[in-house]
């Protein structure tokens, strides 16, 4: 197959293509189990294979994909034909940043292949969790686990050939209950990443069990709690919500394709402009953010991106100042030319596709906030005269240029005079992105730092779902509007 791909790539080059790559998925398999109120509602598995071909012709992209590999030549021709049509409307011919030709392999660290674990063992895990959650006050209980494993062979016209085998595991628990007015509330547990691997071994029965007890206890506190007040105060965000705040208002805002207007028809743009790099005070000096695709245990680490660029650890925000973006080969070239200065020194290795039948686009890797020096959660609370601790993402809605946001949380604990007070229900907060990050007044120490993940980040047309990570500490922000 690899030889066939090389031959087809050479053929298209001879027919005028400037660049060609092919991503062959010999297999991609998934396994999904969902238990709701003790009922195993979903016992599902899937397997797919296929080929995606990307062609650059006269400055325009064409792409074609199929699961039918009986005539790969036709698929390559389709991709070239699509590029020929696209070349009829070009305003800024696509250029690709330089890269090295690489022959490499990457296998994500995994001790126990989840696809070799018997189904009965997985079901037993869910049953045990379901029984733990089945307690007074709980109206609905949900336990789920998802496993993914794929092999990708990347070949391009610049001499690269990369083979990747990636295994991912995801899972979580959720309980919901009804308060005295019949209003629904929920509490969930999505485990942060621990250890250096990402196989079945990360499903720690004891840890899940402890957190099952905790979320049931917290749900029952929510069900009898008062309404979250409407006012302005400090908010202390635990990693279970700060990861999403980071995702939505730093990660997406710093995707270079969005900044350059390539998502305007759908996901939106960014308030960030090319002039802002090196000067915009995105956050307070306590804010340092990096895109780190080298963390071993996160779905945001993949060895090499779908441009064939090795994983990197790049600064995005350095002590509050915007310095970097999430980039692939195409966008950095366009940005540097449009900015009339070299903002970016090559691709940051963040161009990824969700499957063989989607084209690579700029995607987050692990967008992490460095731990700070403001102590533990207890220390931060002790230094907060009037605040609220928030955790859990109930809803999230972001402005089209990522300039403002509204989040609803599963739970809030009021903080008065440096002490944790009562739980409140229907907690929300909102703000303007830059103002919010500049109000960062405390960043927790490494003991508060946790690597969370997102397994369903949507972007692009045709739509793509991607998996990635966010390592974040506990952080406090001042003068934030809550309760709306």
């Amino acid at each position: 197959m690899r030889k066939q791909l090389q031959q087809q790539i050479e053929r298209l080059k001879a027919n005028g293509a400037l660049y060609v790559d092919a991503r062959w998925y010999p297999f991609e398999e998934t396994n999904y189990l969902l238990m709701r109120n003790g009922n195993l509602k979903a016992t599902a598995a899937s397997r797919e294979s296929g080929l995606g071909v990307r062609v650059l012709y006269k400055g325009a992209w064409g792409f074609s994909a199929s699961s039918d590999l009986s005539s790969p030549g036709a698929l390559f021709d389709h991709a070239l034909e699509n590029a020929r049509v696209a070349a009829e409307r070009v305003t800024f011919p696509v250029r690709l940043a330089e890269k090295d030709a690489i022959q490499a392999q990457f296998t994500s660290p995994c001790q126990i292949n989840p696809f070799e674990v018997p189904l009965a063992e997985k079901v037993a895990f869910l049953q045990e969790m379901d029984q733990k959650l089945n307690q007074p006050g709980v109206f609905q209980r949900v336990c789920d686990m998802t496993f993914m494993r794929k092999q990708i062979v990347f070949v391009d016209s610049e001499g690269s050939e990369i083979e990747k085998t990636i295994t991912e595991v995801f899972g979580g628990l959720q309980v919901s209950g009804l308060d005295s007015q019949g209003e629904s509330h929920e509490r969930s547990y999505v485990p942060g990443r621990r250890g250096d691997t990402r196989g079945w071994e990360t499903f720690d029965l004891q840890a899940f069990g402890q957190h099952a007890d905790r979320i049931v206890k917290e749900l029952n506190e929510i069900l009898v709690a008062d309404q979250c007040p409407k006012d302005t105060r400090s908010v202390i965000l635990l990693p279970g919500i700060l990861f999403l705040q980071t995702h939505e208002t730093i990660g997406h805002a710093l995707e270079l394709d969005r900044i350059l207007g390539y998502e305007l028809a759908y996901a939106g743009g960014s308030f960030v402009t090319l002039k802002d790099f090196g000067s915009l005070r995105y956050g307070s000096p306590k804010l340092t953010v990096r895109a780190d695709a080298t963390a071993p245990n996160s779905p945001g680490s993949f060895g090499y991106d779908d441009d064939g660029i090795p994983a990197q650890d790049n600064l995005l925000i350095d002590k509050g100042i915007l310095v970097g973006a999430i980039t692939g080969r195409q966008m950095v070239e366009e940005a540097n030319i449009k900015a009339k200065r070299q903002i970016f020194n090559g691709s940051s290795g963040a161009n990824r596709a969700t499957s063989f039948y989607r084209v690579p686009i700029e995607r987050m890797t692990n967008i992490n906030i460095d731990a700070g020096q403001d102590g533990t959660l207890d220390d931060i609370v002790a230094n907060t005269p009037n605040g609220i601790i928030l955790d859990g993402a109930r809803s999230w809605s972001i402005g089209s240029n990522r300039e403002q946001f509204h989040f609803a949380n599963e739970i809030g604990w009021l903080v008065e005079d440096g002490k944790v007070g009562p739980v409140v229900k229907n907690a929300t907060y909102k703000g303007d992105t830059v103002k919010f990050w500049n109000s960062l007044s405390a960043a927790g120490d490494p003991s508060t730092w946790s690597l969370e993940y997102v397994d369903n980040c949507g972007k692009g047309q045709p739509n793509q779902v991607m998996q990635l990570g966010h390592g974040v500490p506990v952080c406090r922000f001042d003068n934030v509007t809550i309760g709306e």
Partner: protein
Amino acid sequence: MNERIVQTLRDLRAYALTKTGLDVAIYYHEEDSHLMRFANSAISLNTNEHLIRLQITAYSGQKRASYGLITDLGKLDEMKRGIDMACEMVVHAQPLSYKPTIPLFTETFVDESAYDETLAAISGEERLEYFNDAVKGLETDQVRLSGIFNNGSTIIAQINTRSEHIQYFRFSDAQISSVLAHETLKWETTAEQSAQKKSDLDPSRLHHDLAFLLDCYQNNTPRQIPLGRYDIVFGAIALSELASVMNWIGFSGGAMKRGFSFLNVDQVGKEVFSKHITLLDDPACMATFPFKRDLTGIPRKSWPLIEQGVFKGFIWMQDDADEFGTQPTGHTVGHPSLAMQGGQHQVSNLAELVKQPRDNDLLYIPFLHYMNIVNPSKGVVTASSRFGALLLKKDGSVAVPFNVRVTQSVLDIFGPKVAWVSDTTQAVNVSGSYGARNPTAIILPAFIRVNDLEISHSNTAF
């Protein structure tokens, strides 16, 4: 009906019948998708995918397991292995607390009425020509085109071990979205179109809508509007977001039973919404890419959800009906055919709306971006305006506002505060392109005016 698909399904059924003691249902999905994407006034991507998906569900009493694969018709052995996998999994699955119903198709049902060969076969050059016509003369060095022309065809076919009969559906569809945005000022305008057949395509309508909005945006300085309460006119695309979320957390009996609905059984038959609101699930409406039978074989008919403000009752998918011990209502479908009826207020397009005399300032919101559910029990949602909002002043002038955030209950938006509903309706294509192709559109009034809604956040810039 494609005979090769039918024969493949029959071969697979014959194989499944060898699995003693088990039932097997086979769901075939084939898509031929084409998407031309525009950005910065260029074609940023031109792509096509041809994919065949097979979903195999095995049943054993109260146990159920499914196995999916992306395959092609030449791989019968691979498909049979998929049946083996599902049958192996179901042995180890845990029994449900209820017995899942296996559909019994009593006759072969073929519906290709929503398929138009000429739309399915439209070429790349034609897609480009449509866009060139839609924005002719409107682009500048600063005002740049984005958008998509997404079209394709879908075949869904089903068979199972309970009978030899097949259900077969075929659709063609196109979803067109055009955006003209200012590169540095960052304002955005949009016009969209949904098509079920090629003759639906009308780039001149998009051109008219975009030209009108561009004129407003280029001749007005955008400004922040004060927080407070406004009389809001929602456009059809904004209404499609609201109707979709209302369908998700309102009408499903399963959602209600799980505490995830803002409606309850006590409200059935009562005037919960404005008397101006009538909403149907109407499979006779071809613009919605309808399923005329559901995926369990139940013939579908026009089904009132809201009738002059009265909530008519919950809908039940088969699995929810099985779990909660009630009867399914023919709503086990890839998507419903939502159709909200027009009202009495005579207005057919934005230019007419702007010209009409008004008793108050009206905030026109054509599009709601990134809607999410803040509180499902109360139907509270939040989203931001986008793509061409206008402040229509009482004195007849027009201003351009920066985007605003609306956080409201759908019970308020479609409740007693509704002042009027436009007499004209339009189809809004709400298809997503995650996963398998599933063309979906909703029929909505072109405009609905709702008085006295709160704006909780007002941007200082785009």
